[in-house]
């Protein structure tokens, strides 16, 4: 396992983020930094990654674990390259979210909460993502895929497999530079 260290570009962003909060309050940057860490270090937060983030913020590792385990967007275990997050709340359910989930389960031969054997996909069922007017929907990284049909789901899965990329919520370019 290679050493856990942000690349220079991300590190510059991390230091900028810390400056967004008043003197002595840089712990505020924990959530955005954990997002960057998850994106850069394999899509999940390993203990080594969390220790590294603690060292950057000069706080105790346990403070990071405590926070990371509270929020659902942080993965504390390895996940597939591509995380499929399907909403199953009211409006999506009314518009066929269950069919979407069943279809993905069948095609990928996994259940909700599992990862494919090749490590390509993880499937997660989530609560309302604010896409109810364009239901059903799934989030993959920061992208919202809306008005889903089973054909559209198939096309997306093929596309993700071909691209073979990690899904990410954010990267160093998400934030303004100054």
């Amino acid at each position, binding site marked *: 396992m290679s050493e856990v260290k942000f690349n220079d570009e991300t590190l510059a962003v991390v230091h900028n983020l810390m400056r967004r909060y008043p003197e002595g309050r840089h712990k505020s940057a*924990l959530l955005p930094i954990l997002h960057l860490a998850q994106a850069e270090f394999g899509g999940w937060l390993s203990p080594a990654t969390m220790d590294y983030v603690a060292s950057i913020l000069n706080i105790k590792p346990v403070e990071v674990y405590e926070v990371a385990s*509270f929020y659902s967007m942080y993965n504390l275990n390895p996940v597939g390259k591509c995380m499929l997050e399907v909403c199953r709340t*009211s409006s999506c359910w009314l518009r066929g979210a269950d069919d979407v989930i069943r279809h993905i389960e069948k095609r990928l031969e996994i259940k909700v909460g599992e990862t494919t054997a090749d490590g390509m996909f993880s499937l997660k069922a989530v*609560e309302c993502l604010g896409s*109810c007017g364009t239901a059903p929907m799934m989030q993959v990284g920061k992208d919202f895929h809306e008005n889903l049909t089973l054909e559209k789901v198939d096309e997306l899965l093929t596309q993700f497999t071909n691209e073979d990329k990690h899904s990410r919520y954010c990267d160093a370019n*998400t*934030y303004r530079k100054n």
Partner: protein
Amino acid sequence: MGKKLLLQNDKIPGIDTYEVYRQHGGYSSVEKAFKMTSDEVVEEVKKSGLRGRGGAGFPTGMKWSFLAKPEGVPRYLVCNADESEPGTFKDRYLMQRHPHLLIEGMIAASYALGANTAYIYIRGEYFYIVNILEKAIEEAYTAGWLGDNIQGSGYSLNMYVHPGAGAYICGEETALLESLEGKRGNPRIKPPFPAVKGLYACPTVVNNVETIAAVVPILNMGGDEYAKIGIGKSTGTKLISASGHIKKPGVYEIELGLPVEEFIYSEEYCGGILNDKKLKAVVPGGSSVPILPAELSLKTPTGEPRLMSYESLSEVALLAVVCWDQAALL
């Protein structure tokens, strides 16, 4: 056509960019605010009768006037963009298409409160909107609407976007503040209220995205004029997220007091029930509130038409309407 005060420029291409936004009168409310004292701005918002658009419907001007102002202690404005109430997507719509409207409202509000730092706490799932807001904020800095001595007014403001990370409870304002401090989003015991001890134990106002955006038309037209729109103590216009079994799901701006029936069936709004089936029930505000059967959603128990106002519906109902058709419950 109902009156539009927030989405009147919705169809204009490029309205999300600074150039186009400014050409259409953007940032004029800030120019107006700078000609007034901060207390006069608060007074204008009081006169407007504006009530919080985040669910609880608390009068915004009153909330602002409660802000403690101890000498030498910074004050904060925090925008609640957590939008986690199921069925709600109006704030997403507003931020994605009209980022400068939010930024403009944030500047005017911060000036009124005497805050020199403002944060937009946005749910982490909306990361693509973080990109949009960061870009718009950058444009606002470049054009001199943020930073030191804004437009030569002597007033300075820095504005930052802060993503959450998936936790429904962080929509509650004290949990949100905990989260913004880099902690677990556990709600605080009130009192003290954020107006006295909020972010970093400093006086803080937390307002919803739409509440802050509404400050722009209020200052532009004047609080008294704004108060003439709507019905009774439900003044102004309101964004409603409409979804479920309707012909035209989406975000609609309505004048408060519109009958629910008109909202669901008229062509201007939801366009009726999908496949012309019978309306079975309405879930006002998503899944955390009781379901209203069709009869009770269109009429009150005494048989009066039900109106879209704070008085006639539960408050959260003014966030979202989810319609179910006959078949859905079988």
